[in-house]
């Protein structure tokens, strides 16, 4: 080792001698100074060893700048592509995290149908004549729904909702309301009652009113949860569906809470009973008895709530409204309108005011949230005479995103104040919040891009300092 070092030093000395001997043979231009002196006053760019800053800029220039610019370009393109993707996703209201089987829905829906799917519900709309909106709860992997509209076309998808709900142990209370136009209300009432009994259910409440020509009835039936959709199906075949609303409430959490409270109260009851048995004085006995009475009341109360809930879950409630079809000389107009508004809640209130101002009816209103964006669906009925006026007024509530109008055929314009008939023109209004370009996802993408860029620059800088990027001068 030592010898090696000595050899190396020795070699260095020899090399030094070799080169320095020859260095003396190089003579610069004799007139160098005379050429140089007049130039000393020249303004010349400093080219002495570059400072840190200067070296950095020199290092950055050229291919590195191109590389960085390209990276920025690519990131901007990626961010833009991401933004477009997100915007499209928002517009279509598609929520990929939702467990909705879209293919099945789309397959099941006819050309006249549209649907708005959210995490919690699917709103199905029919743009065809006399159509009805349907709100479907999404509580299972595949929901089933089968319905027939007035024109006779039908759609179906998935498996039984109630069965699946039971299979996964969810406690869901399903409710629906259906408005039907039937030729004979009394016959229809009988059909509804028979149907309820056949399905293992019962009629809860029934009332009817009106004359022979203009009869109306309301009936509330209870059917087993697993027959809920079958019942709806049969109801729809009894007449023309004017309006239908289905909603479900997941009470699993409340059910679990009630069960826990009950168990705890029962344990308390047992321990109080044990203490009471051991009580030696009358005053103790009285005190414990008082406590015990309270606990027993609590147990009964909880048991009652649980029973009610179980009953509600086991038996679905369907409210059926039966009407004789209105005497119509032609097809009333209908329209669908999607309006982007600043505040959905305020707009709903003003729309309701507007509709009541023209003696119209708000049939259904559903509010849903998707990715933090509120949207509302309103089914409105107005008199044909007011249809155009209302459509215009609704359009002014915000920015119209979509509008379709089905004009009336030979409809006779019935002045609202002179008519005893209910309003006949339907308007399906969807209110959405405008899609903001800068969503959190956009900002995240851009921030990630910027971060990658910074990391890239740091890596380049480190590599540059380590001499890895230096141009080879060989």
């Amino acid at each position, binding site marked *: 080792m030592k010898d090696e070092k000595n050899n190396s030093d020795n*070699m260095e000395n020899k090399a030094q001698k070799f080169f320095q001997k020859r260095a003396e043979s190089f003579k610069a231009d004799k007139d160098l100074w005379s050429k140089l002196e007049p130039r000393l006053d020249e303004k010349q760019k400093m080219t002495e060893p570059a400072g840190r800053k200067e070296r950095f800029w020199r290092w950055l220039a050229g291919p590195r700048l191109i590389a960085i610019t390209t990276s920025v370009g690519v990131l901007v393109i990626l961010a833009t592509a991401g933004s477009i993707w997100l915007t499209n996703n928002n517009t279509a209201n598609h929520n990929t995290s939702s467990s909705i089987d879209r293919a099945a829905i789309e397959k099941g829906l006819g050309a006249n149908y549209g649907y708005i799917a959210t995490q919690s519900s699917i709103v199905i709309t029919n743009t065809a004549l006399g159509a009805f909106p349907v709100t479907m709860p999404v509580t299972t992997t595949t929901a089933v729904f089968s319905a027939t509209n007035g024109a006779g076309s039908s759609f179906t998808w998935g498996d039984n909702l109630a069965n699946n709900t039971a299979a996964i142990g969810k406690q869901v209370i399903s409710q629906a309301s259906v408005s039907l136009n039937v030729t004979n209300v009394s016959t229809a009432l009988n059909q509804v009652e028979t149907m309820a009994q056949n399905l293992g259910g019962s009629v809860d409440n029934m009332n009817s009113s009106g004359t022979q020509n203009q009869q109306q009835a309301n009936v509330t039936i209870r059917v087993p949860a697993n027959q809920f959709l079958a019942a709806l199906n049969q109801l729809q075949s009894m007449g023309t569906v004017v309006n239908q609303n289905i909603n479900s409430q997941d009470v699993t959490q409340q059910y679990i809470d009630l069960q826990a409270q009950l168990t705890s109260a029962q344990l308390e009851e047992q321990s109080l009973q044990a203490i009471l048995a051991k009580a030696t004085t009358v005053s103790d006995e009285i005190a414990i008895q008082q406590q015990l009475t309270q606990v027993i009341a609590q147990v009964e109360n909880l048991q009652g709530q649980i029973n009610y809930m179980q009953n509600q879950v086991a038996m679905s409630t369907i409210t059926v409204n039966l009407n004789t079809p209105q005497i119509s000389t032609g097809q009333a107009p209908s329209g669908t309108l999607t309006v982007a508004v600043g505040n959905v809640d305020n707009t709903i209130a003003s729309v309701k005011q507007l509709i009541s101002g023209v003696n119209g009816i708000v049939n259904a209103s559903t509010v849903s949230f998707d990715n933090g964006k509120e949207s509302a669906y309103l089914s409105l009925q107005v008199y044909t005479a007011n249809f155009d006026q209302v459509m215009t007024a609704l359009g002014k509530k915000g920015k119209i995103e979509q509008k379709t109008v089905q004009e009336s055929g030979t409809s006779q314009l019935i002045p609202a104040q002179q008519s005893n008939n209910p309003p006949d023109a339907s308007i399906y209004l969807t209110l959405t919040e405008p899609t903001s370009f800068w969503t959190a996802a956009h900002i995240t993408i851009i921030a990630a891009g910027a971060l990658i860029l910074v990391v890239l620059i740091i890596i380049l800088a480190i590599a540059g300092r380590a001499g890895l990027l230096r141009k080879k001068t060989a």
Partner: protein
Amino acid sequence: MIEQTVMTDNDIIRRCQAGDREAFRIVVEKYQNILYGTAYLMTGNRTAAEDHVQEAFLSAWKGIGSFRSGYPLKPWLVRILVNKILSYQRANANPMISLDTESFADPAGDDPAEEIAQRDQLRRVMQRLSNEQRQVVLLRYFAGLSLAETAEALGRRQGTVKSQTSRALEQLKDLIEDDNKS
């Protein structure tokens, strides 16, 4: 008795920094040959070498104000020169030095035969090396810079310079040994 004043580099620098051209003339005369030789061996071209030396001295004059006294002048000057040459070579994409026998043998055209022979030997030595090795050997042994100064001037790490030097010396071993014996 005439008092002889020996001016050190530090004194000269201070005077240069005060704008004394005469002092700078001393600097030029003191270092012009070594700079010229370095430039010549780096470029293989007499005119180019002269131009680079001139430019290096001009830059040194402009930048002498920022030179920190107490530091040796030669490495600083060599660094300016090497920087100029490398920048030029990078910009003109002609980093390959052609060590053609003729111009190398007699750059000035009127040199004694012995000097020509010595330079020819130097040419043979340099031809054995890669460009990186040539630069390292040149600065280390021809210009007499330290390892750190060479690394600084070439913008390489000391470890790199060290390994390049030892590889170069390994290749030049026989030629240098022969020369020592003679």
